């Protein structure tokens, strides 16, 4: 389903985040990507979400070269994936409900149907009853769950999560890992980057270890 073909990402200044990286990820797989800081984990996800373009090579999804998508097509591609960023990017002046509603508003869902889906997504991540809470009123783990609810509310086939358990204590981290596992069991292809090799080794059947932009 996902194929990285000889992908190199070189930043201005000379740093090479990925170096001729090749990898195939099948539909419905759950893959944990680990490695030291600067190994290229986040770059991998950013290339897949087309937040960046590769310097060389191609990123194919279902046979389509997403790294060559035109600018006008990018929003529609991003609507089809779920993205959990390392820095969460929640809107702190909006309620939990409104944060999760945002992707549905963007894709033009009718308000009533969207509201039902938002409640279902919040329930799925264990935030039922917190619809009106502002993000600042939520714990770190709950904020991460809210970010995940926002990522899954559009029912994506691919879920990308960049260090979703960073800054969380062990119990919260396990909860979050459980969540990703349950999405994967529902048929979603999950790609998670992590520092915590041990945590995801229990959940992800497949692990990729990156070092200096290459698979180890």
């Amino acid at each position, binding site marked *: 389903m996902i194929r990285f073909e000889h992908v190199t990402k070189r930043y201005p200044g000379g740093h090479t985040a990925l170096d001729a990286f090749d990898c195939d990820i099948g539909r419905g797989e759950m893959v944990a990507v680990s490695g030291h800081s600067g190994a290229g984990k986040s770059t991998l996800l950013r290339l897949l979400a087309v937040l960046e373009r590769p310097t060389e090579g191609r990123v194919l999804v279902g046979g389509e070269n997403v790294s060559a998508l035109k600018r*006008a097509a990018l929003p*529609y591609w*991003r*609507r089809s994936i779920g993205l959990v*960023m390392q820095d969460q*990017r929640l809107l702190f002046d909006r309620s939990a409900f409104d944060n999760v509603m*945002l992707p549905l508003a*963007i894709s*033009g869902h009718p308000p009533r149907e969207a509201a039902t889906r938002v409640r279902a997504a919040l329930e799925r991540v264990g935030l039922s009853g917190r619809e009106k809470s502002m993000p600042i009123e939520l714990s770190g783990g709950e904020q991460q769950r809210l970010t995940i609810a926002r990522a899954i509310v559009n029912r994506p086939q691919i879920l990308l999560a960049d260090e979703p358990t960073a800054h969380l204590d062990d119990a919260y981290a396990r909860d979050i890992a459980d969540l990703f596992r349950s999405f994967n069991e529902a048929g979603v292809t999950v790609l998670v980057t992590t520092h915590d090799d041990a945590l995801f080794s229990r959940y992800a059947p497949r692990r990729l270890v990156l070092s200096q932009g290459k698979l180890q």
Partner: protein
Amino acid sequence: MRWLRLQMRAGLRAARQMARQPFNTLLAALVVGIAAALPATGYMLLGNLQRLAGNVSAAPEISVFMQPQASADTVRDTDKRIRALAGGARIERITREATLKRFRDNDGLAEILDALPDNPFADAFVVHLDNADAARLESLRAEVAKLPDVEHVQLDSAWAKRLDVLIALGQQALTMLAGALGLGLVAVTFNTIRLQLLTQRDEIEVSRLLGATDAWIRRPFHWFGALQGLLGGALAGLLALLATRALATPVAELAGLYSLEFVLRPLTAIDWLVLLALCALLGWLGASASVRRHLSRIA
């Protein structure tokens, strides 16, 4: 249908955004309103002045007043001579009796006139001349003045012409003022939207990550500008209405001094519609320019 639905949702988002900051919204609308109120009030006043000028003939007229003791024969003879001199012009004869009656009826002077031993008014003629140049008018005035028992000859069109020219000048000045203030309105909206873009930077970035198109991001800002313009236009209309109310009595009193019945008319429904549409359009233009310029800078 989908386009309309998207526009409606964007309009609602913009309205909610305005409601979230009522003080800022009111202040911005006030700035727009005051800027638009000046040309709106000026337009309303000029319209009234034009209506007043329309009641007064701007075509040249010569008023000829006979001596009060002129005999009926002399007046008839003068009538014939004026007609011969004026060559086909329309001539209106106003008898001294008619003038006396008019003053009795209209000007509350009945008691004073009754106290006089005789009718103090003289017979008069009004010569209506279309398309006569200044030299011809002056020569006719001089010739008529030489006729026997003619007391006074007056060229009446000059002030009406001046009024016409002043109105035309006022219209030009108003157009220039409206243009300048319209530009100001665009600039105010441009800046308001720039600040909105800055304060909503996070939301824009997150929306892009989640798949928002540029059109989706732009739409509520366009609506914001248009709604702000609309609100400002409504305030401008209200200010013009207040000005009409405040000026109505003094204007009526002034008109009364010139024996005129004149009521200051406020903006019509069509004027209101044009004002609101123009302000909304200018707001939309300012917002559109601002979004186009600043959105590309937000990654």
